[in-house]
């Protein structure tokens, strides 16, 4: 019972931190402000997260874990087995449209954290870990789909979407510009898998 409450409290804190990051940035993240936002006691925020850095890192890890879960949920094992270049691209576009383009708050919070990592070296290992995990995730799919050099290709794809999403988020676009995204992803992939057409 206690454990369950602890989990719920942690999740309230994560959600509040995510909100604060998206609304005002890292400077708005203090134990006090988060406690108020989350509707929990100050004591419990400091109990769960000793320092602000700890709070930021754990929130980031929780957030990206949520992202990954939702991405995985969109592909069952059968679909993974049948992946080819064409289906892969459709999946990537679908996931963009349904997960990233509409989750503006999550995206802003993500960039706030990543930009903070430019200043605070203690956050950098969390970013590195995310990069590795994400490249592995995409790399496995790319390999299944027959893309050449799956890890390198996944890295290249990641670079592209991090940049693309950044400008979409900054522009505050309500529509996801699916057309533009699709065109560019197809072009990117036609360069990635040389030989073996989709």
């Amino acid at each position, binding site marked *: 019972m206690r454990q369950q409450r602890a989990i719920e409290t942690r999740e309230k804190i994560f959600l509040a931190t995510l909100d604060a990051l*998206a*609304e*005002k*940035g*890292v*400077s*708005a993240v203090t134990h006090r402000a988060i406690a108020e936002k989350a509707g929990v006691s100050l004591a419990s925020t400091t109990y769960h997260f000793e320092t602000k850095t700890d709070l930021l890192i754990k929130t980031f890890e929780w957030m990206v874990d949520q992202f990954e879960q939702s991405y995985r949920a969109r592909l069952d094992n059968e679909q993974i087995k049948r992946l080819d270049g064409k289906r892969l691209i459709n999946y990537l576009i679908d996931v963009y449209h349904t997960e990233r383009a509409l989750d*503006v708050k999550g995206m*802003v919070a993500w*960039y*706030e954290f*990543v*930009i*903070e*990592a*430019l*200043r605070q*070296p203690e*956050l*950098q*290992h969390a*970013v*590195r870990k995310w*990069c590795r995990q994400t490249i592995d995730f995409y790399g496995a799919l790319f390999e299944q789909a027959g893309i050449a050099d799956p890890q*390198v290709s996944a890295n*290249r794809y*990641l*670079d*592209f*979407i*991090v*940049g*693309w999403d*950044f*400008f979409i*988020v*900054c*522009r*505050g676009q309500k529509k996801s510009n699916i057309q*533009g995204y699709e*065109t*560019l992803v197809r*072009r*990117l992939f*036609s*360069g*990635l898998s040389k030989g073996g057409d989709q």
Partner: protein
Amino acid sequence: MSPSKPGQLTKNQAKPIKAKQSRTKQKRGVETRNKIVDATVRLISREGVGAVTHRAVAREAGVSLSPTTYHFESKEMLLREAYGKLHASEMARYKNLVAQVADDSFDEDAMMDYVTALVIREATEFKEDVVAGFELLLEATRSAEFRDRVEETYMERFKFWRDLMAGSGSDDAESDGHLMVCSSIGSFLLMMASGFDQAELAKIRQKIKSTVDSLPKF
């Protein structure tokens, strides 16, 4: 005609000194203004846009509150000026590169060297500017008036890359331009956010070259 009292000036003597004072005052005014803008950039870089208040900027600049509010009525003005300064500095840094690309005598290898050196300098020497720049762009998510800046920034980079790709013989320089703007910003941001060491810096040229090469040009 000698002055009636020591220290008292005749009418003619008074004028030029008054003008000199005004020029010095003006110069000081501009210096103070610049100090404030520079301080704003430093503050944004170190603590984010949220930390920008007139008081904090005044403290950082080592000036009092009143010139800060005198020169910049609102926080938005401070941010806008800071962005303007960053933008101008960045353009100056990229000027040579842009000129080379515009020039028809195009050597891809030399271009790669140039871009690589640029990226390395941005990541090290100009890190403060870079961080502040990212912060200010992201601020556009909260403040609609910044969105023009985002558009401007994107278009400038896009034109640069599009022309570079066209010069490299791309069959769709527009798309490749978009791909390169996004990929270059994305990889740069991730590199800096992950922390990088000398070994990784050494691999940058290779990475840029292989990214450009992987674009389906022909």
